[in-house]
Structures are given as C-alpha cells and as structure tokens.
C-alpha cells in the first residue's frame, strides 16, 4: 500500500494551509483531502449570477482584500508594520483644501500626528481627516474627488 508517512505529511500540509481540498493522482493512485470548513458563503464569489454582472460586489472586494493585504505584506518584505488609515465615514475624498491648492499629502510625505491627510465631504460638510500617528505616507489609495465607503482604506502609512 501507499506510504502513510507521505499521507500524514500531506495532512499536515493541508491543516497548516488555507486549502480546502487536496486531490492527487499518481501512477494509478488518487488522493483527495477535504477540509470541513469549505463551502460557507463561498458560492457568491463564483456564482454565475447575472444580477451581479455589473455589480462591484462588496463580497468580492472583501474576499480579494485578504489577498491584497498579503500582497502588500509580501511586497514590503521586512516592513510589514504599515498602518491602514481607514475612512470613518461615507462621503467624497478631497486631497486638497481647494481645487487650486496642493494635496495635503502624497507618497513620501512625512506627517505628524494631527496633520490633515485629506478632507471628507458629506452633506455639504467638510471634515478634515487627521493623522493619528506620525510617519511617512507609503501609498495613497483613493484619488481626489472619489467617493469612499465607511472603513475603506485611504492611505498606507509607515509609522516612525
């Protein structure tokens, strides 16, 4: 029969991983390993649901976001301490105090806690978003004039 040590190793591998299923076929030998967790809510991502065709589905965003984060982590290598600055409200982001003014911050800007990062407008009210910690702006995730949701990541900030 088959090498059980190999199978144990395989199970360790699947348990330590985020995989759902492992299927192997080798010289007439087939192995399929499946995890209990699997299914839940996963269908919506692949759903052949025409109603979602032109829908920038938040669930898809959500699922993808996990990858986005890990991508960032991978890219930034040693430095994985980036802080996500999220929107505390729904509204429109303005990068500067007026159409003619310079942006409050751009990639590479050094900010101190309390500095204005951008303006968020909702119901004609302008709300200044301030940095909570000091650091350097590593990424600007939303462009001037774009709408933002609650909890949306606006900036990646490297604290210092």
């Amino acid at each position, binding site marked *: 029969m088959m090498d059980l040590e190999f199978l144990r190793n395989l199970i360790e591998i699947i348990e330590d991983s985020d995989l759902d299923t492992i299927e192997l076929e080798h010289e007439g030998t087939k192995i399929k390993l499946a995890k209990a967790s699997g*299914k*839940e*809510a*996963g269908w*919506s991502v692949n759903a052949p649901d025409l*109603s*979602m065709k*032109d*829908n*920038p*589905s*938040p*669930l898809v965003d*959500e699922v993808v976001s996990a990858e986005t984060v890990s991508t960032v982590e991978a890219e930034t290598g040693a430095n994985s301490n980036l802080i996500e600055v999220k929107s505390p*409200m*729904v*509204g*429109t982001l303005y990068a500067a105090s007026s159409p003619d003014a310079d942006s409050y911050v751009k990639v590479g800007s050094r900010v101190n806690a309390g500095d204005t990062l951008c303006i968020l407008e*909702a*119901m004609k009210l302008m709300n200044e978003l301030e940095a909570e910690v000091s650091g350097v702006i590593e990424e600007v995730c939303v462009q001037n004039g774009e*709408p*933002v*949701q*609650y*909890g*949306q990541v606006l900036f990646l900030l490297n604290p210092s």
Partner: protein
Amino acid sequence: MIWGVLLFKKLLIANRGEIALRIIRACKELGIKTVAVYSEADKDSLHARFADESICIGPNSPSESYLDVARIIAAVEITGAEAIHPGYGFLAENADFSEICERSKIVFIGPNADQIEAMGDKATARETMQQIGVPTVPGSDGLVADLKDAKSIASEIGYPVMIKASAGGGGKGMRVVQNEEELSKSFDTTQAEAKSTFGNSDVYIEKYISEIRHVEIQIFGDSHGKVLHLGERDCSTQRRHQKLIEESPAPGMTSEMRRQMGETAIMAGQGIDYVGAGTVEFLVDPEGNYYFIEMNTRIQVEHPVTEVVTGLDLVKEQIRVAFGEALSFPSGEPSIQGHAIEFRINAEDPAQNFMPSPGCVETFQPPGGPGIRLDTHLYTGYQVPPYYDSLLAKLIVSGSNREEAIVRGRHALDSFVIEGVKTSIPFLSDITRDDDFMTGGVDTGFVEKFMQRWVKR
C-alpha cells in the same frame, strides 16, 4: 425591447435583511438600479450582494449605520440615487428623515413629515381620527397629565384600562391595570419608562378590551388624490404585541364588514391626504365593533399576505406612486382570491422564552411546491448578527381556503430546515395544529394561553 414607463434611474435602500431584498427585487422588475447600504456586520448579506451598488456606511451598531441619517444621505450623494426606500423599522417612520430627504431633493418612498407626525404620536393620531369621525377606543382625549387625571378618566370609562406611552409602538410602552390601586402603582412607572425608552414621558389612557382581535386594513393613496383599500389582515396571533402569524381574509370577516372597515380606513387616509402604502390598525370586539388604534405610514412586514390574495405587488406600487403615477388597481372593493397566511420565522428559541439565537445558519433548506412563497435573506453559511431584529424569513402560504392554507403551512414549516440557530419554526408548527387556531377567530390573548399549554408539553 423595453417595457413599462421609465421611473427613477437609481434607488437607495435604507434597510437590510429580507425587506431590503424584497425592494431590490421590485426595483429589478421595474428596471431601476439599486444601491444597498450595509453595516460592517452585514458585509456578506444578500442585500449587499444583489444590489447593483453597495456602500458600507458604518459599524455594527444600528445607531451608527442604518439609523444614521447623515451616513445614508451621504451614500445617496456619492451614488447619485434619486430616491430612498426605507422599508419598515429603522428610519421608515422618522419625520425628520423624510423632511431631510425632501430638502435634499431626494424622493422619500413614504409619506411626508407632516403625515408621519400626524400619525406618529398616538394621542395626536387618536384626536385626528376622532375629528374626522373614525371610531376610537374609549379613553382619554389626549394626554393624561398626572395620576389624578388618570384616576378620573379610568373611573369614567371603567376598568380594566391600559396606560400607553404616546411615542410607544411594537408592543412596547403599554401596561394594563385592573383597578385604581394598580393604576396608582403603575402610572408613574409607565411615564418614567416612556421617558427612558422613547425620550418622551407622555402617556394616555384607553379602555382595555379583552377577547379583542387585531385587524388592519391596507390602504394606498396616490398623488392624484385617490385613496383605496386592499382588504384586511388579521394579526391577532401576537406574543407580547409582537405579531407571529398574519392572515387574509380575517376569519369570520364578512364582505359588508370589510366594506365598512375599508371605508373607515380610506377616510383615515384621506383625512391626512395620504400618499403611499399605509395600514390602519383596528381592534375588533366579539360583537364586531371596531376601533381605530393607530396608522402605520410604511410598508408592513406582513404586506405579502395582501399581495398573495390580491395578486398585486405593493412594493412596486409604492415606488410608482412615489414617482407620481396613479394607483394601478381599480376603485371599489378589492378582489380577494383564496386565503393567505404569513408565518414569521425568527432566530429565537421558543423553549427558552423566545431568547434571541444569533449564529451561523449551517443548513438552509427551504420548503417549496404549490402555494409557498418565501421572503428571506438566509443562505447556508449566513451569520445571523446579534445587532438587529431576529426576523429570518417570512413563509407565506396560500390555498383556496383557510383550511388548505393552514395544512399547507403546517407541512411547509415541518419541511423547512434551518440548522445552527434556534428558530420559531417548531412553535409555529404547533400553533397550526391547535384546535383554537384551526377553528379561527383567535383573539390577541391566544398566544399567551397557547404558550402555557405548550411549555407544559
């Protein structure tokens, strides 16, 4: 090929759960793009998935999401929606919200602030109705200032009486007292509770009628001055003033009584120039006398019961009427076909005094076949959040008569599998086997009595 009149291009749904899905379906059928708003707890919910656009508006707490007017208006602004459908609950009967929408040139699918206010305060609503000749339950004409007033009114109309918070609703803020001694004990407490719960200590007093049935009339008004009714729903199967089962026609209803109550309800709507879907609630005593209790200026949870027996789509009608169209159905008495019953399936454990039971829906296998309609936001794997109301699904069954509908409902409930959270399904199923319920004409005290038998099983 495009059918139908062009309506709004885009509509925002300021709600969640099954009613948000219900409104999305109506919009899809009308060719209107939809915007869902959702809290972080609802990021995986179907309303956020099935809408054309979805906006996260805040954290789990309703006060920072579905109840936050500013966040919802901001979501309208960034998506360019022309109209808001508030569903039921949350901001549906919030006059300020309706007014802010009006000022912001957003169509609020519901009545204007004045109409909401006219009906939102129960004592005011009562006065309004008395002025236009709608019968009300004997009681204080307006608010009761203090215990002395309360005593004199109670002795005039006779005990038992009910002390009700003017701003109350949904079964909250009301207390029955049997005599003057109980009244003395309870009056101040009720005022204090009203203050803490609703921010308003105003109370009024009504005669308490036992063996009463709760029968409501669905009305609809358009902006061309027409108000019509679509028959009644019997909602007497309540637990602590929370409806569990609703049906139409009401058991024992005659066409003459329907006509009379319908006309009274239309009068109530016309009295405030009502536009949109509204429900005029009455208490009906064993002699068939009926008394206005309140008017709800929104779509009701139980609207599908009326949809099934009339063949109309009330949510689409709401949207068309809000756009300015005339009512799509003819004047006169509504045509009622067969019998429909709605069962509210809640994430509650009936065996543990209906304790809420949030959690993961590990299995969701709905019933099907003839006469079965299901309005739900559930799916296998759905997490029922603990932050909102416990309604999971509305099972609406229909048959050519009440007997067929009940038996169909019983077997639909029995084949409905929801695992992972406790639900009211077994309790509802047992009600469908109860002789009193089957005979029909249960009063609002039925569930309390049934529960005593049920708990002892």
